[in-house]
């Protein structure tokens, strides 16, 4: 269902052609990273730490090297020491020392699964056996597993060099403290008739991409090298892997394979420089592929968090003040998304008085990586459930309550600058008017919950080339890895501008030597920024078509019109097909190009409505119905936009119900497989309904906003709100797994006896 507000008359954009990469994918011909193989290729395996926190006293590799078939072993000694400071490398500043140490531990191991050494051998089995022959002597140290553990006085210090601005030269686990302030908070709470304050905990969760990380590296004798890898950003891999491996950046070519999911977790690197150094050392191509256990122990996750949130409102539902304290687990190295959490937590609302204190805290867990609207989902769990509770206290419908406080164009963002045209109110109204929200929910232990979310989206850099063929089809070359159907969407943009069919544009995702610099597929930027680059590259091709027509007709180029594949000037007409066929006689091949830096993009809002039924005997929650309304600016390919909305909602429901990292007392991850790291399966979810809201983004040639991320933000809070309305129990900890919810239900029932006597009938 599309609530279109756009009046432009697009012919291709907004339709639903079959994706260009579809046949290769359904027939198994598409090549993913692990499909690459080369003659004389070796297989690399990693030795990983069995301890959460330990000093490495010695590493002996002789026995491993002596195993027949083993060609090389590398440790941190094989990698350059890099500067311990933030430096530009690729798309965002990175602390290269931290990056390098995360990929190969130097003095200490900082989490269960931390890489220590890698072996290259003639078969994966020999490499695995060799890994077991590496002898490491550890001095085991006590771990700090949570923000509370890590922030308390006397906590084990994870990185002895870490300092923050407030604590001077004192070693600390607090990497940063960020603060946002507005108005007078105390006075704001005095104006409030109702105040709700709660403390929330959200679990560390993994992106859960289907395809494990992989890399095949080939180092050539001439010093040039190539990496085939599953990544969201080939230029980021080029910058980061070359730095860690100690080779010149542009000596490395990165070929992005088809990708089996990333969700932000494939923006950074793990295996690429390790495989490269092994290849350099052996002279053979080296392939490394992670197991699922490796993926869960040592890659991704996003932060668990503790958030204290206090908000107040007047009797008629106007928010007056908010006071928020939030601390996120960064993992072993600084860099949690707590800043984004702080900037999103109350972003949908006008709150005149607020203070937000946000802390980035290192703990003995894997270094966190980006995950779909990083930081915002944790934050919304706190703020959106408090909002729901305030609405309940006021006796106001939760959507009406949000409408009373919703931000619109001109209102200030958390960091200060005003919003441009945004569509938050439109998403609320879309849910309010939806068949779902208008339907009656009846039956015992059932409840309906609503929550909203905000995400910034980013612009950054993209390149595109449109080559017109003699038969008036076109090839489109882009550098953006296609995670969610963006190749099809971009082919549609080119087709729209060229006035040809989407099927007549053949899109290719190119390697780092073949296309101009293009930032990662992340921040919901690909359809938007690469889409704008494609739009401009196609316009560049159209400009060339017009120039040729003008020359032939002896008129000025600006007198030539181009519409639906037809060049015209007065009564003169020529189709793109006629012109393309004559390219050699009219000035050579027609190739349009654009390389752009998009600074300002439209942010996204989403509102999600969820119906649940709670089994009050077991605490198990069934999702009966879920609807996501999202402002997407302008949907290029509505099916893939809906797919993003459904995917984000599904992942958010996973956060809500069962997904969590479970560590034991010693800091060892217990659930490093998909049996016990429980993502929802298709049997755990209803068909997720979607409402595309289109409030065009200012400054974009098509009006598109990023669509990939904001949809994950509201679901956990929406499920919590639905549970509250079904049972009267307010859950403050994610996931709301059966043991946790049952405990809360039994507590509410006022029974100390948690055994059968208290059980439900």
């Amino acid at each position: 269902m599309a609530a279109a507000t756009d009046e432009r008359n697009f012919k291709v954009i907004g339709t639903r052609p079959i994706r260009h990469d579809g046949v290769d994918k359904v027939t198994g011909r598409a090549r993913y990273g692990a499909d690459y193989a080369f003659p004389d290729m070796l297989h690399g395996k990693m030795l990983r730490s069995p301890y959460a926190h330990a000093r490495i006293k010695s590493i002996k590799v002789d026995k491993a090297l002596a195993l027949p078939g083993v060609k090389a072993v590398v440790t941190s000694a094989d990698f350059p020491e890099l500067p311990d400071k933030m430096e530009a490398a690729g798309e965002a500043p990175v602390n290269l020392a931290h990056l390098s140490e995360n990929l190969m531990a130097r003095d200490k191991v900082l989490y269960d699964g931390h890489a220590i050494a890698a072996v290259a051998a003639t078969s994966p089995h020999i490499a695995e056996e060799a890994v077991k022959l590496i002898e490491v002597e550890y001095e085991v140290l006590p771990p700090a597993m949570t923000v509370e553990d890590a922030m308390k006085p006397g906590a084990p210090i994870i990185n002895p060099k870490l300092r923050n601005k407030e604590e001077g030269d004192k070693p600390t686990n607090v990497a940063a403290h960020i603060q946002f302030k507005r108005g007078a908070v105390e006075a704001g709470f005095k104006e409030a008739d109702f105040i709700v304050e709660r403390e929330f905990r959200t679990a560390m969760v993994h992106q859960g991409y289907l395809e494990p990380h992989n890399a095949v590296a080939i180092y050539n004798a001439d010093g040039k090298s190539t990496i085939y890898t599953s990544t969201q950003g080939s230029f980021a891999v080029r910058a980061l892997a070359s730095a860690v491996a100690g080779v010149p950046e542009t000596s490395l070519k990165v070929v992005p394979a088809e990708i089996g999911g990333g969700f932000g977790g494939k923006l950074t690197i793990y295996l690429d420089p390790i495989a490269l150094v092994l290849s350099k050392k052996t002279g053979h191509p080296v392939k490394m592929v992670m197991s699922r256990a490796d993926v869960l122990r040592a890659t991704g996750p996003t932060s668990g968090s503790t958030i204290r949130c206090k908000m107040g409102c007047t009797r008629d539902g106007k928010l007056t003040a908010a006071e928020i304290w939030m601390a996120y687990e960064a993992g072993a190295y600084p860099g949690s998304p707590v800043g984004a959490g702080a900037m999103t937590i109350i972003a949908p609302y006008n709150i005149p008085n607020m203070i937000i204190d946000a802390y980035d805290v290192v703990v003995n867990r894997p270094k966190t990586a980006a995950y779909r609207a990083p930081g915002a989902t944790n934050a919304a769990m706190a703020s959106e459930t408090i909002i729901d509770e305030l609405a309940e206290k006021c006796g106001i419908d939760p959507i009406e309550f949000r409408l009373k406080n919703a931000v619109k164009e001109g209102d200030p963002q958390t960091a200060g600058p005003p919003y441009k045209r945004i569509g938050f109110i439109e998403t609320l109204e879309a849910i309010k008017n939806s068949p779902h929200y208008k339907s009656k929910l009846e039956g015992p232990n059932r409840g309906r919950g609503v929550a909203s979310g905000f995400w910034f989206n980013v612009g950054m850099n993209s390149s595109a080339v449109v080559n017109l063929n003699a038969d008036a089809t076109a090839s489109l070359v882009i550098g953006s890895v296609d995670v969610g159907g963006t190749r099809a969407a971009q082919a549609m943009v080119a087709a729209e501008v060229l006035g040809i069919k989407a099927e007549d544009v053949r899109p290719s995702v190119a390697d780092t030597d073949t296309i101009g610099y293009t930032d990662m597929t992340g921040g919901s930027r690909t359809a938007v920024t690469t889409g704008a680059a494609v739009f401009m590259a196609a316009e560049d091709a159209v400009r060339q078509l017009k120039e040729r027509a003008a020359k032939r007709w002896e008129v000025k180029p600006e007198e030539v019109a181009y519409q639906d594949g037809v060049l015209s000037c007065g009564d003169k007409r020529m189709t793109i097909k006629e012109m393309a066929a004559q390219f050699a006689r009219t000035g050579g091949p027609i190739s349009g190009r654009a390389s752009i830096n998009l600074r300002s993009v439209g942010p996204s809002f989403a509102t999600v409505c969820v119906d649940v039924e709670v089994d009050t005997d077991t605490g198990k929650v069934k999702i009966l119905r879920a609807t996501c309304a999202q402002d997407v600016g302008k949907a290029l390919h509505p099916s893939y936009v809906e797919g993003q909305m459904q995917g984000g909602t599904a992942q958010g429901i996973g956060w809500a119900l069962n997904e969590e990292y479970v560590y034991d007392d010693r800091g060892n991850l217990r659930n490093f497989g998909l049996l016990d790291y429980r993502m929802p399966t298709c049997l755990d979810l209803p068909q997720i309904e979607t409402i595309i809201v289109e409030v065009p983004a200012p400054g974009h040639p098509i009006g598109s906003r990023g669509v990939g991320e904001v949809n994950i933000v509201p679901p956990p809070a929406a499920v919590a709100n639905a549970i509250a309305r079904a049972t009267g129990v307010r859950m403050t900890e994610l996931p709301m797994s059966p043991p946790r919810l049952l405990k809360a239900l039994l507590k509410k029932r006022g029974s100390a006896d948690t055994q059968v006597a208290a059980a439900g009938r």
Partner: protein
Amino acid sequence: MAAHGDKARALCGGTDLIIQMRAGVRRPEYVVDLKNIAALRQISFSMQHGLRLGAAVPAIEIHENADMRRYYPGLTEAAHLIGSLQIQSRASVGGNLCNGSPAADTIPALIAVAAKARVIGPQGERLVPVEEFCTAPGRTVLQPDEILIEFQIPTPAPHSSDAYQRFIPRNEMDIAVVGVGAAITLDPADDRCVAARIALGAVGPTPIFAREAAAALVGKRLDEASIDNAARAATAASSPIDDMRGTAEFRRHVVGVLTRRVVKLAAERARVAQSR
């Protein structure tokens, strides 16, 4: 198997063994594939002799068998809960038992219907009641040179039936946090319970035959009071631990909940079961 003793491990569907070998939990030097031995692949049922269920029969064939569905609906649903349809095409009930997991779905269901395991080895044959088969997590009474051939299960008495339910956090593709199997025989004249067997999974080091829970029902009408007593006795018989799949406190509670549900379901089935 006799030649290689401890170094060999029998394989039927391999849905546990192969995973354990990959994880390095079991490292047999020899794997002996039993699944193509005809005697291990038969299901036969007669009113006189009851059920003989071959140890290597894949779970999916149990679900497809009309006698199984009619006379042993609880055991059938337990077999049908294992993994996905693909897994069920390989996984066998015999393998489920020999793997010795306390969380195995079919074991409480087998105990409920009084199944005996027929074991054969160089020393001859023996029949082991399933409730005596598992000795510790991953350990059973099988000697290294013995294999499980089949299950022998008595014909259900008139007006009796069975049921199995498990609790999992998701709806499929999961492992029991608690499993409860029950078989109930009723007296059609006054609806009193004349016989019952209840067994629990995933709440102790081995599947638990909860005799006291069944005893709380025998001779009674199955009303809230008697079923509550059975649930309480089942909870008392359980000895769960805290782990990543659930707390001990949660599991004790859910043993009661599922015992109640399973007894009611088995009794409903027994009431409509034809006089046999």
